[in-house]
């Protein structure tokens, strides 16, 4: 996993609530057995019509907006557990998603792929949308060390699990950690009265 410390970038606004993972990556693109190339189909049916032509009013097709921060409406990433959603967002080039609320499974998947989900207050989110609308060039700064996000003269701090913060800062993932606990896990198995094995 890539390390994440500090990011300064312009942002892409997506002021839609309840963006579900079926929109992020439709099911018909889940047939791959690797993690490559999902970015091409990110928001596929909002980006392209059924003739594969770009839909001009969708934000990813608007050259005015760019950057590796996606700013989205409330309850981002709801629905299916497909990690392909996180792979599509990172493959497209996003490193941070900002919303006032994230669905649980998506949030975990994002963190496991070095994609930082930042939950901000609804007011701060509203101000961010406004700032991007006023000036699409506005720079947003994300500092994971101090857990702050800022633009113009506004700053808000965000929460992140301290273990996950260490993982993100250092590019660690959970597998190595869990494998290192093998003896403890085996001990747990031996101590159980009901093993649920028949």
């Amino acid at each position: 996993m890539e390390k994440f410390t500090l990011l300064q970038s312009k942002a892409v606004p997506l002021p839609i609530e309840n963006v579900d993972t079926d929109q992020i990556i439709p099911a018909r693109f889940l047939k791959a057995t690797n993690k490559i190339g999902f970015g091409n189909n990110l928001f596929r049916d909002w980006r392209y019509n059924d003739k594969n032509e770009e839909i001009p009013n969708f934000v990813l097709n608007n050259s005015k907006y760019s950057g590796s921060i996606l700013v989205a409406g409330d309850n981002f990433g709801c629905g299916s557990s497909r990690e392909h959603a996180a792979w599509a967002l990172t493959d497209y080039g996003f490193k941070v998603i900002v919303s006032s609320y994230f669905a649980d499974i998506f949030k975990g998947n994002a963190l496991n792929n070095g994609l930082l989900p930042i939950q901000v207050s609804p007011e701060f989110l509203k101000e961010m949308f406004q700032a991007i609308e006023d000036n699409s060039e506005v720079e947003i700064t994300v500092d994971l060390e101090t857990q702050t996000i800022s633009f113009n003269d506004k700053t808000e701090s965000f929460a992140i699990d301290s273990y996950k913060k260490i993982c993100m800062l250092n590019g660690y993932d959970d597998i190595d950690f869990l494998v290192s606990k093998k003896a403890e896990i085996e001990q747990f198995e031996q101590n159980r009265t009901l093993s649920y094995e028949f």
Partner: protein
Amino acid sequence: MEKKTLFDKVWDSHVVSSVPDGPQILYIDKHLIHEVTSPQAFAELEERNIPVFRKQKIVATADHNVPTKEQHLPIKDELSRNQVEQLTKNCEKNGIELYGLGHEYQGIVHVIAPELGVTLPGMTMVCGDSHTSTHGAFGTIAFGIGTSQVAQVFASQCLLLNKPKSLRVNVNGKLANGVSPKDVILYIISQIGTNAGTGYFCEYAGNVFREMSMEGRMTVCNMSIEMGARGGMIAPDEVTFEYIKGRKFAPKGEQFEQYVAHWKTLPTDDGAVFDKEYSFNAEDIKPMITYGTNPGMGIGVNQAIPSPENDPSFDKALEYMGFQKGEHLVGKPINYVFIGSCTNSRIEDFRAAANYIKGKQKAANVTALIVPGSQQVAKQIQEEGLTAIFESAGFEIRQSGCSACLAMNDDKIPSGEYCVSTSNRNFEGRQGQGARTLLASPVMAAATAVEGKIVDLTLTLN
């Protein structure tokens, strides 16, 4: 003594250890896998040279991406065939039990595990699928995980997790005639919204759930994720034990009794406190239908679509659906009906639909699809004589799989068409690009197929 919830009891007994100021290591008793969310996890392990830690705790099936016609033939779509073959290879290589296409136990992962007695109260269970919450019907901690976590469970039989907060939804009273478990859960989500449960694990309590069959409880718990909750549980009771007894992989004889004794200790202690609680009256619940593009956008079938102001997301949803604020849905022509999915593809669902359909014909404009949740359910449909009822009414019966719920295979609803569906998600394009989904119960779906339009089930059944 500390008062504990059902969830606390199961969770706490599976904690291997806690990371200081961090997550807990939670032991997983059963890991269900399928073809779509497992290949990258197997590849990850292989790259890092890590073996599968407890292969006997994994059960595999092919369901999401399989055709529902001519399953004995090679899959036509190359990518789908490759994905299903990859699962077979991965299972062979790692010694994992696979119920693949053609196997008598194949089916939707959340249908087969309960029917085989794999799902048991008090266990922890995961799958790379958000509807793993289904198994909570047994008093099981069951939840969906991403592919990185699938790899973690392969590698260690554990996950790193922060304990979720607790939520209880109480529904008490008497359900009206024709109000099914699907209506109960659609009603709950319509009342509390699609993110009320985010960060929580839910328990459903009250006489309405106690009086439900296991199939009904599974329908309810299945949709917990649609209100954002990672999982939903119902306390195990005699109905649960009776369902499990004698099933293929369930404990038998004295061992069964030993487990039942443990399961009886699991229900939430009197006086245990939940972080959040909602209560509803059963009498307020009507046969439900959704009108929008998330499962929280539901109404009683004879009610009007709400008219909120200054809500662009709501407007966007109605525009997609082709509906107006304040509009009633009764009488809307519908050309597609789908009865299937991990929410409603068990034998009781088909019995309920057949009971309504018996002696009737589907409307000429309707394409009606019956997709059993498993080979076992398909067999039951046949044995109970439901096949004749469906076929003579003009319904098409397919082979088991996830099918038109997520339309990964060829079972797609055409663009712009409405489908009354017993599945769990009405997201844009979920059942095919441009398809418009209206979620409902099996009886509502059956009635729609017969009439060719949305009917007021409250009038029909009373």
